[in-house]
């Protein structure tokens, strides 16, 4: 079952990355929706592993996504789906296996209807829309997107792991909000990376980051990191402000969203403190 989890993880990332490559709104929506469904498959398989007390991690292969045409990555997604299909009998949960199988039937059909188009997500142009950013601002923007797209993926996986391994409804509500928020940030940053021709799959996360012994320390460190991320957003907003008010406003918007994340993490921290237990 752990192999199905890993393959589903890889399929999810391939599909969400493909959604950033297309300029066709309908294709993007379809790929985006499918990636969300595949992520849910991932969480359901994970829940089964937890239920059956099977050890697992989020290790996976590196995923090559550099293509010139959308059809190539779409065909790759279909191949990955077909590979997982063969493994579905390994899932002991028949209802989940049936659900995934029928989802895959429709996905393969719908994916085969997607029109081909040229992909510019890897041309390295490092231009964002028509904005004429200075070299310094472009470099700061580039580094920010690489650092933060990884960070958001990392946060999704950490909170997902905590959520999968907790039965506490109060905490799980907080973790779910933080996962959803990181999804929005990941999607926003990856779309920008695609526009700049530097789209990349975030690197594999080391297991020590999500197999956490001390959640209280993790939350305390996480609050510090969120405060640092706010500073990065502010610095970037300042760096691009004279060339693009739209970008500056976007990074201010992200910056202010971090305030609520910090409050949620403080809430979780207080809850852990009150319960006086270690995860």
């Amino acid at each position, binding site marked *: 079952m752990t192999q199905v989890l890993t393959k589903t993880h890889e399929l999810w990332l391939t599909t969400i990355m493909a959604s950033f490559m297309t300029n066709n709104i309908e294709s993007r929506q379809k790929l985006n929706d499918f990636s969300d469904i595949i992520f849910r498959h991932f969480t359901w398989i994970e829940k089964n592993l937890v239920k059956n007390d099977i050890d697992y991690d989020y290790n996976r292969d590196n995923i*090559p996504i550099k293509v010139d045409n959308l059809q190539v990555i779409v065909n790759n997604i279909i191949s990955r789906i077909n590979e997982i299909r063969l493994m579905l009998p390994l899932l002991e949960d028949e209802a989940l296996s049936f659900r995934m199988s029928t989802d895959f039937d429709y996905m393969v059909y719908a994916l085969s209807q997607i029109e081909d188009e040229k992909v510019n997500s890897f041309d390295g142009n490092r231009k964002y829309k028509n904005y004429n950013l200075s070299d310094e601002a472009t470099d700061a923007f580039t*580094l920010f997107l690489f650092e933060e797209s990884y960070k958001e993926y990392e946060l999704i996986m950490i909170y997902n792991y905590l959520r999968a391994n907790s039965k506490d409804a109060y905490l799980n509500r907080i973790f779910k909000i933080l996962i959803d928020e990181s999804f929005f940030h990941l999607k926003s940053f990856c779309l920008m990376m695609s526009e700049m021709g*530097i789209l990349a799959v975030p690197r594999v996360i080391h*297991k020590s980051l999500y197999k956490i012994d001390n959640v209280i320390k993790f939350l305390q460190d996480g609050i510090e990191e969120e405060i640092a991320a706010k500073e990065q957003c502010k610095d970037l907003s300042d760096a691009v402000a004279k060339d693009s008010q739209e970008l500056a406003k976007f990074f201010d918007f992200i910056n202010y969203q971090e305030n609520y994340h910090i409050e949620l993490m403080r809430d979780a921290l207080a809850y852990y403190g009150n319960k006086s237990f270690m995860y």
Partner: protein
Amino acid sequence: MDFGPEIIEHMSNPKNYGRIDDADSIGIGENPQNGEKVIVYLKIKDEKITDIAFEAIACMTTVVAGSIITQEARDITLEKSDELVAVTLGMLDNVPPEEAACSEMVALAIKAATDGYRMSSQSGKKDTLIYKIESSCSPEQEYKEGNGQ
């Protein structure tokens, strides 16, 4: 960091990124100031590095340094690896402090892995060495039982 196409490629697709489950040796380079670390995995045959992988719990600059330096360390002898580490550490004065810390962490992780391999060859016991970066670049070493995380 100069964001030319080559560096962007290392950022997008870091070479040798990941882990080797049946590594002959694992070494860790760590920044004690912020807890960032680089973990290097080696497969070694006849005193030669036949496979290398790394993981970074660190910033993108460290990932780029890991991608570049581990490429250099692939398919070379342990003796050449010592030279590579020495050359890398010797060049740190010429780069900005943050970038120096990143390269130092990668070089020390490789050194920890090769030193650990030599020690285990003598003692028969696998240890994962952790070398901490310092401004003087002289590693202080700690020992951790077992060859795993």
